[in-house]
Each structure stands twice: as structure tokens, then as C-alpha cells.
């Protein structure tokens, strides 16, 4: 007897049965593209719906009707919305986001620099905050309801309750103004060497770590606690597994999904949600770039930033799901 795969079943389906993970990934990828497309429509419509337009906003009080008309014509703003959308999407697919209306420079080029800055900051904030959060979470579980747990809880609650600009101001006040040990403003630029760069981002990184730490830490603590109290952990203990084996084999795969989800959300936040921190620390990242563009209705820049932000969220969420599924085989077969 031949196996079922050889038995005339379509090869693709057989492949799918053997590698369910790959199929899931492919599905998620396809879905992401559809999502991105939907987001692009939303962004375009959203920017279109903003009150005021580029020509008048950009020229401000010194605009004459003639200058406004010149700009509108020059940028093709007199074309219908759909035409403009299709043209824009066509370019975006090829990685060409066009030129900024305000500065007339290539958006892709400018974003490259800004995105680099944002990722630089996010990277250092992430490599400090993620291990710290997970570590502190486990520590809290270990000392559950005892003094260290309480302390960690109180501090993290305080950090999460303060708005991020306030955390930033406090750090500036103490470390830059009072003690003069930290660099401020955190402006980075092209020909800056790595050491200066690291010094410059010390305060914003610290702010970001404080802001995202609590969220991840508390989720880690909750996830591990909920797994520890489940029936199968009790079974594992009763059948005599060592504590280490029980945690690695049974607890970790079940706790990793919620943890990785909250980590992914926070990582995405570190890239796309740090506008306030960038403004407070005068850090030239993506958020600041997008806000500047929104203010003058510089549509190509707003759209490109929006799309990149969306892509980050989608990508990180997808990665989180894939890691969760890879870690926990039960999730591969949704009921």
C-alpha cells in the first residue's frame, strides 16, 4: 500500500500536512499584504479628510492666491483623488515614495535616515528593557507576594502611571540640569561617532525603558503565574519531574505566547509610538518627522510614514504569532 501522499492527493496539500507551520506563515504573510493595502487606503483617505490643504498651510499668512494656485498645480493637487492614489500606490510598491512637497527631497532618502535613528534608539531600549522585564517578572514570581514582588510592582506601577514626557522631564531635570552628567539635547547627526551617539541617547533610552518595562514585566509575571497554577503543572510535579524540566517542557511553551505578544506590542511602540519622547529630547526620529509633515499636510511624507508604521506593527505581530506557534505545537491546529 502506498502512503496517502503518493495516493494521488495533491502535492501541495500533502506538503501542507507535513509542514503546517510553513503554511501558517504563508497565510499570515498573505494576510499582512492585504492588511497593508487596506491601511494604505485608510491613510490616503485620512490625510485627504484633514482640514486645510498643503498649499495654504505651507505658505501660511504670506500666501497669495497666485502662489497657492501655483503650488496646487505644480503638485498635481488639481487631479482627482483616485488618480493620485493609484499613482502613489504604484510608486510605493516599487519603494518610491516620491518627493516631499515641502522640501522637494526624496522621501525614501529622508526616511532612511530618520528610520535609522528611530531603530537605533528602539534597539537599545529593547535590548535593555526586554531581558530586564522578563527577568524582573520571573523574580516577582519567585518572591510572589513577598517584599521584592511588592517593590517591583509598586515601582513599575508608578512608572507606567507617569506620562512619558513627565518621566523625560524628570530625567532631564536631574541628570542634565542639576547634576550635569547626561548629554542633552539628544540630537544625533550624520558625522557623529558611535560613542557620542550612545551618550546622546542615554536619557531617551532610559525614559523608554521605564515606560515600556512595567507592561512587559507585569504580563510576564501574570503569564507564568497562571501557568504554574494550572492542572498539568500539578500533574508534572506529581509524576516526579524535576522543577527545571517541568518549567522548560511544560510551563514555558504555554507562557511564551502572551509574553511574546506583549513584547512585540512594546517593540512596535518603541519604533512608532515615541513621538513625545522624540520631541522632549529633540531626537530626530520618524515620529517627529511625521508630525512635522502632518502639520503642513505634506502628504507623500505622511503616507510613507503611515505605511512604514503599519508595516512595523503587522510584521512584529506576525513574528509574535509565529514564535508563539513554533513554541507551542498545540496552537498549530486551531479547533
Amino acid at each position, binding site marked *: 500500500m502506498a502512503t496517502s501522499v503518493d495516493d494521488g492527493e495533491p502535492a501541495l496539500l500533502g506538503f501542507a500536512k507535513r509542514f503546517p507551520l510553513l503554511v501558517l506563515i504563508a497565510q499570515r504573510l498573505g494576510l499582512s499584504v492585504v492588511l497593508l493595502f487596506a491601511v494604505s487606503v485608510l491613510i490616503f483617505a485620512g490625510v485627504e479628510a*484633514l*482640514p*486645510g*490643504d498643503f498649499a*495654504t*498651510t*505651507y*505658505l*501660511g*499668512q*504670506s*500666501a*497669495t*492666491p*497666485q*502662489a497657492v494656485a*501655483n*503650488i496646487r498645480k*505644480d503638485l498635481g493637487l488639481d487631479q482627482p483623488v483616485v488618480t493620485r492614489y493609484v499613482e502613489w500606490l504604484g510608486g510605493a510598491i516599487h519603494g518610491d515614495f516620491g518627493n*516631499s*512637497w*515641502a*522640501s*522637494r*527631497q526624496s522621501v525614501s532618502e*529622508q526616511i532612511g*535616515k*530618520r528610520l535609522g535613528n528611530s531603530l537605533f534608539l528602539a534597539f537599545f531600549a529593547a535590548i535593555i528593557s526586554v531581558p530586564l522585564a522578563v527577568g524582573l517578572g520571573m523574580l516577582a514570581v519567585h518572591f510572589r507576594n513577598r517584599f521584592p514582588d511588592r517593590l517591583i510592582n509598586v515601582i513599575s506601577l508608578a512608572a507606567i502611571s507617569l506620562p512619558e514626557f513627565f518621566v523625560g*522631564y524628570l530625567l*532631564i*531635570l536631574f541628570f*542634565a*540640569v542639576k547634576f*550635569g552628567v547626561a*548629554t*542633552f*539635547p539628544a*540630537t544625533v*547627526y*550624520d*558625522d557623529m561617532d558611535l560613542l557620542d551617539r550612545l551618550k546622546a541617547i542615554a536619557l531617551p533610552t532610559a525614559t523608554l525603558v521605564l515606560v515600556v518595562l512595567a507592561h512587559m514585566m507585569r504580563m510576564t509575571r501574570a503569564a507564568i503565574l497562571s501557568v504554574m497554577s494550572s492542572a498539568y503543572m500539578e500533574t508534572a510535579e506529581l509524576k516526579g519531574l524535576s522543577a527545571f524540566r517541568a518549567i522548560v517542557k511544560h510551563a514555558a511553551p504555554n507562557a511564551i505566547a502572551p509574553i511574546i505578544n506583549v513584547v512585540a506590542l512594546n517593540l512596535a511602540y518603541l519604533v512608532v509610538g515615541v513621538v513625545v519622547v522624540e*520631541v*522632549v*529630547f*529633540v531626537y*530626530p526620529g520618524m515620529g*517627529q*518627522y511625521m508630525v*512635522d*509633515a502632518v*502639520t*503642513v499636510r*505634506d502628504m507623500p*511624507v505622511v503616507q510613507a510614514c503611515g505605511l512604514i508604521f503599519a508595516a512595523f506593527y503587522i510584521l512584529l505581530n506576525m513574528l509574535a504569532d509565529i514564535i508563539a506557534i513554533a513554541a507551542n505545537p498545540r496552537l498549530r491546529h486551531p479547533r
Partner: protein
Amino acid sequence: MSDYTKFLAGRVTSGGMNRREFMGRAMAAGLTLAAASSLYASSASAQEPKRGGHLKLGLEGGSATDSLDPAKALSQVLFCVNRNWGDLLVESHPTTGEPVASLAESWEPSADASQWTFKIRKGVQFHNGKEMTIDDVVKTLERHTDEKSESGALGVMKSITKIEAKGDDLVLTLTEGNADLPLLLSDYHLIIQPGGGYDEPTAAVGTGPYKLTGWEAGVRATFERNENDWRSDRGYVDSIEVITMNDATARIAALSSGQVHFINRVDPKTVSLLKRAPTVEILNTSGRGHYVFIMHCDTAPFDNNDLRLALKYAMDRETMVDKILGGYGKVGNDFPINETYALFPEGIEQRAYDPDKAAFHYKKSGHDGTVLLRTSEVAFPGAVDAAVLYQESAKKAGINIEVKREPGDGYWSNVWNVQPFCTSYWGGRPTQDQMYSTAYLSTADWNDTRFKRPDFDKKLLEARSELDKDKRKEMYRDMAMMVRDEGGLILPMFNDFVNASTKQVKGYVHDIGNDMSNGYVATRVWLES
């Protein structure tokens, strides 16, 4: 000069007294405003400038969308950055506002002021080593007059019909006489660029005291001294760094921790806190900018002059200056001109808060019910508070004002110049003529009070080509009275420009022209080690 004023002047020279203090004391000692300011200017400049050092400025008003093309310069940061590398044909005098020579050495009008001849300075080099020629000047002006251009100076330049070179002189022909033409050329967009800036408008190559060495829009600009500068009375520091800092708290933190030497836009609410820092000096300068409440003269109920007068008398100007500007400003008199303009019409009676007169005119207008005032935080700093203060003072006159807070986004396209009664601001203009032509001429692009009076228009055009200063002053007085008594403008206050620096910064020139020493701060100050 009395011993006392001599003493005051000495204190200024030694750096021990700022302008505000000096002016207050000198005027109390009997000097006129003009005498006191020129004495201040000469004493301040008597301080011996030092060369060298790296000057850092933290400025509000920059954005990733900034372009170095002078034609498109709008932001505060560009205003200051472009001053460092470029020169204009004409500058305005820091204390009198009169035109002074820059790249144009001198000028001569025709009898009716409709044709002007400018002598262009020789032997001036651009940063790229090429000598500036008449051709560069002509092309620059052409670029800014082109109907297709997006130049911010287009409005100023549109009355110029012909730009030509006659030998080494520049000859400009206008549609009508304009006695203020030299001052119009001091518009900050009109930087002379090689080849007019047609080829590389954003190259930042000019004749200014500094060369641009680094530029990232909305982040930072760096400069080094131009060793071939044609002037010796500027460019004292070796290098300049302009950092865009749009957050007010960040600017204050950077200044008080000594990370920058100068910041702009200090919020009047925080001035008193910042003053406490021993290393910091507040630099405030009277300016032409003003905060306004504007009514459309052609829209009911504001088409009734009695109602407009009632609303004018119901405004408590002193309180506005005190509460909204923290004292850093002067009361306004319902016309858009103050004593910083040349030919300011003196002796016009100051309009004061008078609930009785307001009630009288309100009754006479026959209007009852509420008056709707739209406002927003973007109209000017503290605009919403100002509207509420106004509501209170008007209530005492029996006038009920309803304050509607509009979203800041889109305020300039949906509310200002559209709705009949709202709050707004004006930055002021180099000349009275320009201020009136921009906003009070019947056909003005931005006639935001819908003030349409043929007799006013006629007078404005007459004054424009009048070369006799006394006659002109008389005409401006008549115009001011028309706007004040019959216009739709309520002008409670002129705001000071409030900047701050560390005490290391010396030689700051309080320029009435515009904010940040008319943008020239970095080229005029020096650092004391």
C-alpha cells in the same frame, strides 16, 4: 547728557544692564524714547566685541519640511539660518527701522518714486569664490517676481514691473510710486544668490558672514566663519550650531544647563521661573507683532459701527498685557501700527476699557443676544484665555460674548478670514504701507476685517508715492483714525519678542524689525569666555 544717563550708559557698556532696565530708567530721567534707544544702541555697541568660540542656538519653529531655498523660507529657524549665509540688498536699522545699505550701497528714487536706481556694492565675493555681479542681483529679483514662483516675497514684489541692469546699477520700475521700495527689498526672502539661485536654490551659497557646513531639515544646521566676509562689524564667533527644539521645556532645560547659549520663544508664563537661574538673561524686544480680535465689517451683526465700538470699549487692554503677555508687551490702540514704525502717528488718544461707553454704544446698535467669538490656542499663545478674559470684561458692560473653542488644526483655513469674529495674530511688516496694503486695502489678499473704504484706499496709494515725510505722516494719521474708529479690528496688545541667553552672550542687539534680533542674532553677538 546728564550724569545719571551717562552712568546708565556706562552700566550698559559694562554689560551690567539690559535694555528693558535701561530704557525704563533713562525715560524716567527725562529722555525721549528715540533718544534713549539710540543712546542704548551706542552704549551697547561700545562693549568691545571678542572673536572666537562656538555658538549654539536652540530654536523653536523648525521642521523636517524646511527647505533652504530662501524663496520658500517661512519658519523661525530658517529665518535665522538664512541670515547667517546670505545678504540682502537693503537691511533695516535695528532701532529706527529706516533702510540701511547692505549689498546695495545707495539708492535714488525718480521724482514720483516710481523708478529707483540702486548702486550695487563691488568686490563682494560669494562663498564659492565668484564675485557678485549685477547679473546675480537682477536674476535673484527676477526669480522672486516670477508669477510662477512660489516665493514668499511674491506679494511684496508684485508691484515691480521691470528689473534691469543699467551699467553697474540696478533699475527697478514700479506700477506706481512707492517711497518705501528700499525697505521692501529688506524682505528676508530676497537673499542675493549666484545666478539668482535658479540652478541650486538650496545650495545656501551667499555673501553672508558664515558658510553652511551641515544641514538636516528640522534637526540641525552648522556654520563656520566666512574668512572673506566683506564686513568687519559682524561674524564674531568662529562657528555656529542651530538646533531645532520645538518643545518649550526642552529649550529651557537646554539653556539653564548651559548646553545652548540662546533660545527663542520663551513663554511669558515661565519667564519668572527662568529669570531665577543665575546664568540666564532674558532678552525682550518691543516688536510689531500684535494679537487681534477681528470682526468682519460687512457681516451682521458686525456691520454696525456702534456694535464694533461697543466691543472695542469692552476690551480691557491693560489686563490683557498683564495676564496674557506677563507684562512683556504694550497695549494696542485698535490700529495695527506702533511706535516701532517710521512715521508713526503720535498723539492719538489711547482707547481704554470703558464699560459705560461700551454699554452706550451697545444699546445704540440695537443688537441684543450673544456675540459669538471663535478662538483657538493656535491663534496666538494664550488666545483661549484671552477670549475668556474678554468675555468677563464685556459682561460688565452688559455684552454677552459666547466663546467657541475651535480645533487648532485647520484654524487658518476654516475660521480665520472665514468666520465673522475670531482671534488671530499679525507678525507686523517693515512699513506702515505694507501692513495696511496686506490687510486693510479693499482689494488686499488678507483683508481679514473686510474693511472696504474707497477713501482709505485712495489715501494709502497717495501716501505710498509721497516722498515728503511730514505729509506722509499726516496721511498715515488719518488712515490710523479710520481703522481705529470705524474698522473691524480690536487690537489689545503688541507682543514683545521674548528670547533668553546665557550671560556669556554679549552684544545682543534689540532689533525692532523682528524676533531674534531680526534673525541676525548669531551674526551679531559674541561669546565671553
